[in-house]
């Protein structure tokens, strides 16, 4: 069964079209990540699914039921917000149980679900504290716990990690992945961080300007991007683009090559002058100018390359992409 189906969903605020004809589906138990640059409508799409905004056109089905007219609390969803949105005047336990008490669940059920969620998220010591007495990471876990106790058909996460520092983000990312495995629930996760998208997703939906650019597994998108935007958006550092004419005289297309597919080669076709070197220990990122085009090469291991140095870069012919003027593969 499909957990969520969107068919031709559009959303406008007055004259501004924020979402344009979006169709997609989320299978039962699937972890789907929406990615896209800031302002592309990810949060709006999530809010339409949650019922916090009405779709201007199109159908939203959750677990097969048409929910366009159903209020958020009856849609069988739970949402984790970027700002945590914990109730400041309630302690952790009450924050987690509010929805269940509102639904009129029996006391034993509530207790049991809180105990389970709290064990899963290591929240036991904090159940009687107020949100202001918790660290950012703990608040985030409470927000996730509040979603879990509802046992929703569909979890919605809106950039849940963006307020955490890098180390905590990585830990929480792993926790969320574990959670998904344990609960085997359907989840939608919004982020503009492509690393989160690649590491967590069963399926990635790339959005731009309110349109779906491509839907697929992380490796499908990485290996076969539908267009130049998707190619540039996924992968870090992002794909290099330059006129194919630099390599093949007279070729008018744009050539794309990932930084990790470039290597040093005395006979390589790209003559470059090093602008900047980032030594990461395991990798070395070389930023260099090829004529007036800046490209990044990610070399494995440590290299004694210096700024201003001239070098030649090569690549395997099967690793390159070509795009036409409209950004489509050519």
């Amino acid at each position, binding site marked *: 069964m499909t957990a969520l189906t969107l068919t031709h969903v559009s959303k406008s605020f007055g004259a501004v079209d924020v979402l344009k004809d979006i169709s997609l589906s989320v299978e039962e138990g699937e972890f789907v990540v929406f990615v896209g640059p800031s302002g592309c409508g990810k949060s709006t799409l999530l*809010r339409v699914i949650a019922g916090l905004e009405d779709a201007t056109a199109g159908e939203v089905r959750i677990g097969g039921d048409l929910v366009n007219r159903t209020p958020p609390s009856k849609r069988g969803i739970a*949402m984790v917000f970027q700002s945590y949105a914990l109730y400041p005047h309630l302690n952790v336990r009450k924050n987690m149980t*509010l*929805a269940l008490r509102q639904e009129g669940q029996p006391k034993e059920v509530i207790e049991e679900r809180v105990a389970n969620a709290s064990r899963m998220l290591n929240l036991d010591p904090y159940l009687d504290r107020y949100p202001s007495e918790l660290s950012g990471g703990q608040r985030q876990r409470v927000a996730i716990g509040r979603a879990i106790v509802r046992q929703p058909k569909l979890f919605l996460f809106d950039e849940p990690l963006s307020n955490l520092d890098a180390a905590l983000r990585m830990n929480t990312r792993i926790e969320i992945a574990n959670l998904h495995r344990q609960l085997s629930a359907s989840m939608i996760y919004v982020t503009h961080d492509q690393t989160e998208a690649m590491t967590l997703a069963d399926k990635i939906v790339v959005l731009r300007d309110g349109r779906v650019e491509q839907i697929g597994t992380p490796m499908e998108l990485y290996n076969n991007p539908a267009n130049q935007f998707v190619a540039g958006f996924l992968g870090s550092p992002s794909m290099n683009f330059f006129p194919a004419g630099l390599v093949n005289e007279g070729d008018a297309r744009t050539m794309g090559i990932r930084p990790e597919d470039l290597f040093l080669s005395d006979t390589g076709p790209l003559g470059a002058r090093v602008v900047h070197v980032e030594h990461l220990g395991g990798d070395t990122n070389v930023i260099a100018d090829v004529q007036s085009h800046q490209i990044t090469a990610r070399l494995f291991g440590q290299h004694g390359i210096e700024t201003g140095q001239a070098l030649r870069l090569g690549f395997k012919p099967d690793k390159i992409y070509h795009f036409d003027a409209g950004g489509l593969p050519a």
Partner: protein
Amino acid sequence: MNKARTNPANTIAMHGALIAYTLIALFPVFVILVNSFKTRKAIFREPLALPDADSFSLSGYQTVLKQGDFFLYFQNSMIVTLASLFFILLFGAMAAYALSEYRFRGGKFLGLYLALGIMIPIRIGTVAILEMMVATGLVNTHWALILVYTAQGLPLAVFILTEFMRQVSDDLKNAGRIDGLSEYTIFFRLVLPLVRPAMATVAVFNMIPIWNDLWFPLILAPAEATKTLTLGSQVFIGQFVTDWNAVLSALSFAILPVLVLYVIFSRQLIRGITSGAVK
């Protein structure tokens, strides 16, 4: 730590300025209190002197307590002020929530229309108000004053509270909606507690003009049973003779409740002024 705050010269200058301002602000209160305990002669001979054995007198307080039904006036003022504040805050907050939270046709215009009231003094409409009160039979009731003061206080209340409510996180309200809270519960249980400092600010701004008002009590509710404290004190001010002892004693009494209410609201008020400065 902020450098300007730890520098001793700055600290002294800052506290000096604040103390000077406090003295200026408290001076009239001080003069009223001190002189209310003096004989009439002493008040005029040395208005700034503290009462001593010679000049000490409680005659003002005796007059006030004997003459008229002072406690009734006091009670009237209290009822009118508190009821007006209650309605200003309740309706002001509700209107502000609607204006800040819901997008509806004419919402912007309505906000502007409500804010316009800040600039138009309600006293301009006194004659019409009086006619209305006569027609509805509300003259000489507490309701006459409460309704007028509520109308007078609402524009500013709506204006201030709308701004504050816009800052309440959307995510929080949305979390409530997903958890199945009704719009009323979201308003009363989530939003109102978060704008409490702003509510206190509005309450203090409105409390003092209402408590001190002479105009509307004189016109709409001058009857003995509904006289407010300010109006009641006027019996001591005559065209030819003014019983200064009594006037000052009545004023001393009148200051008291305002002070108490202010202390209640001020903790919130300070938070209101500094909120946003520190997260």
